[in-house]
């Protein structure tokens, strides 16, 4: 495994947990931040802070420049045609809700169908459930195979003329499955349905080219890709954004306001009501630069290497450990959810914490998937650019130790 040798860029890696070195294995939940991003954020507040847009003074011009430059960087990062196709939101969840509210309420009627998958994060389920409850549309599911891949055998039947939205995750945050989204988007587009990708686990870990994907809308979160919390992105095709009704109303998104009516700005500003999270967006621009420097192909290769190593090591443990998701690294990202026989995931996470190993245990915001897997919760380790072989070794050691500790409680 090639070391990315970026670990020292991340100040938190010097942290001790219970006097042990930090082994951070929860990047699927949120990533750590390199010093350049943290410093950019603090420097912005120390030197350039002012509200963006409309300010005719130096600080406001600087602030606006930083904010709008980040938009350009994000656009280039996913190969969007122009920066005007990049809407800043709070997170992936808000991006998806924006679609459900602003596009959904104008275009969906009773009896229409929305197609998703059972491996969706709650954030790509609940917005559609809320919409269906209000409008009376139907939520349908693509099936899932034993190995954690989608069953696309009956896709042509599932996508009918009633299908108005096809929305799925680029990569599962539990199974690690990388879905064949290009193929599914193509079918959705052909059927005249809106194609939506939840890229919360896509943009941080895989090279993304929205033009090549031909996707209508693509959503992701800055905090999972080295950026600050509080920033989400919604990319959209120009013709879709310009036809879409506004969502939140208020300052910044309007053009003219009278006491009884108003007109809106063009996209993307039409969808950015109120003072945006400009300081965090500016810092997110620096995170994008950082990822660009490394190269997303290298990010992906590193995750293949480390995940392969981790899978091999887990297999060597003398226990009947179940690892969920596909084994083929071509279609699997750096997520390792597993079942440790006889030890509850909560207990696994807690005993690992004592060794400084930070993993997640629970339903990972995917309760329906948990039910399909026949478990109430799982433990999950997930990797990113700063993780190395040592992290995996510490994870494996801790897992073995815990197994012994709980040993005879197994049943």
């Amino acid at each position, binding site marked *: 495994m090639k070391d990315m040798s970026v670990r020292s860029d991340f100040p938190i890696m010097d942290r001790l947990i*219970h006097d042990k070195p930090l082994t951070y294995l929860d990047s699927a939940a949120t990533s750590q931040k390199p010093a350049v991003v943290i410093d950019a954020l603090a420097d912005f507040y120390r030197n350039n802070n002012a509200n963006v847009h409309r300010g005719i003074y130096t600080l406001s011009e600087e602030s606006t420049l930083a904010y709008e430059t980040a938009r350009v960087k994000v656009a280039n990062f996913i190969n969007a045609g122009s920066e005007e196709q990049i809407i800043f939101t709070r997170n992936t969840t808000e991006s998806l809700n924006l679609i459900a509210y602003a596009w959904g309420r104008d275009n969906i009627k009773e009896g229409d169908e929305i197609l998703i998958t059972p491996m969706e994060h709650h954030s790509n389920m609940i917005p559609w459930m809320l919409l269906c409850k209000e409008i009376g549309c139907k939520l349908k599911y693509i099936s899932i195979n034993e190995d954690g891949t989608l069953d696309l055998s009956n896709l042509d039947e599932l996508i009918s003329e009633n299908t108005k939205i096809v929305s799925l995750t680029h990569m599962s945050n539990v199974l690690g499955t990388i879905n064949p989204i290009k193929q599914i988007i193509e079918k959705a587009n052909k059927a005249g349905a809106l194609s939506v990708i939840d890229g919360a686990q896509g943009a941080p870990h895989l090279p993304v080219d929205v033009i090549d994907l031909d996707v209508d809308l693509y959503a992701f979160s800055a905090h999972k890709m080295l950026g600050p919390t509080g920033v989400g992105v919604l990319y959209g095709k120009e013709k879709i954004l310009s036809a879409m009704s506004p969502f939140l109303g208020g300052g910044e998104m309007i053009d003219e306001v009278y006491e009884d009516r108003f007109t809106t700005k063009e996209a993307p500003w039409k969808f950015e009501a109120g003072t945006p999270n400009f300081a965090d967006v500016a810092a997110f621009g620096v995170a994008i630069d950082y990822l660009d420097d490394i190269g997303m192909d290298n990010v992906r290769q590193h995750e293949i290497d480390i995940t392969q190593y981790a899978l091999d090591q887990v297999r060597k443990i003398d226990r009947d450990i179940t690892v969920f998701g596909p084994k083929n690294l071509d279609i699997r990202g750096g997520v390792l959810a597993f079942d440790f026989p006889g030890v*509850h995931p*909560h207990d696994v996470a807690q*005993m690992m914490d004592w060794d400084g190993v930070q993993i997640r245990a629970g339903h990972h915001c995917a309760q329906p998937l948990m039910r399909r897997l026949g478990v*109430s919760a799982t433990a999950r380790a997930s990797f990113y650019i700063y993780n190395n072989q040592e992290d995996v070794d510490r994870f494996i050691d801790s897992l073995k130790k815990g197994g012994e500790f709980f040993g005879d*409680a197994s049943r």
Partner: protein
Amino acid sequence: MMPQDEPKFDELYRELILDHYRYPHNRGVLEKPDVDMQQHNPVCGDEIRLTAIIEDGTISQIEFMGQGCSISQASASMLTDRVTGLELTDVDALSVEFRNMLRGDDPDEQMMQDLMALQGVSKYPVRVKCAVLAWDTLQKALKLK
């Protein structure tokens, strides 16, 4: 921002908890119980079912079934030990004190006795729900009765 008074791993998993988890007391389902209540914690899927016989305002017998993490199962096992033979009003008082301890209050050690073993859980908010699941179930059962 550093947490004060970090609980030790072995504190949390004191022998007592692990013992109850490995060899639970009063595990089973009573026949013809006066109360029978099942609850679960949606966050992690832990489940507890309690069946009990109440005589003269006193819990004369109680058993539990369930599945879940060591904390939730050990807590249920300890609960059955502790409330057998208690008057319902005392169960109430005990339940309140137990919850307060898990919310971070200094507990009345005399009253808590063995239950003190679960104090360390109060530092892990996610797991507090595991520890109180059995107590929630009991309280709900007694209220409905």
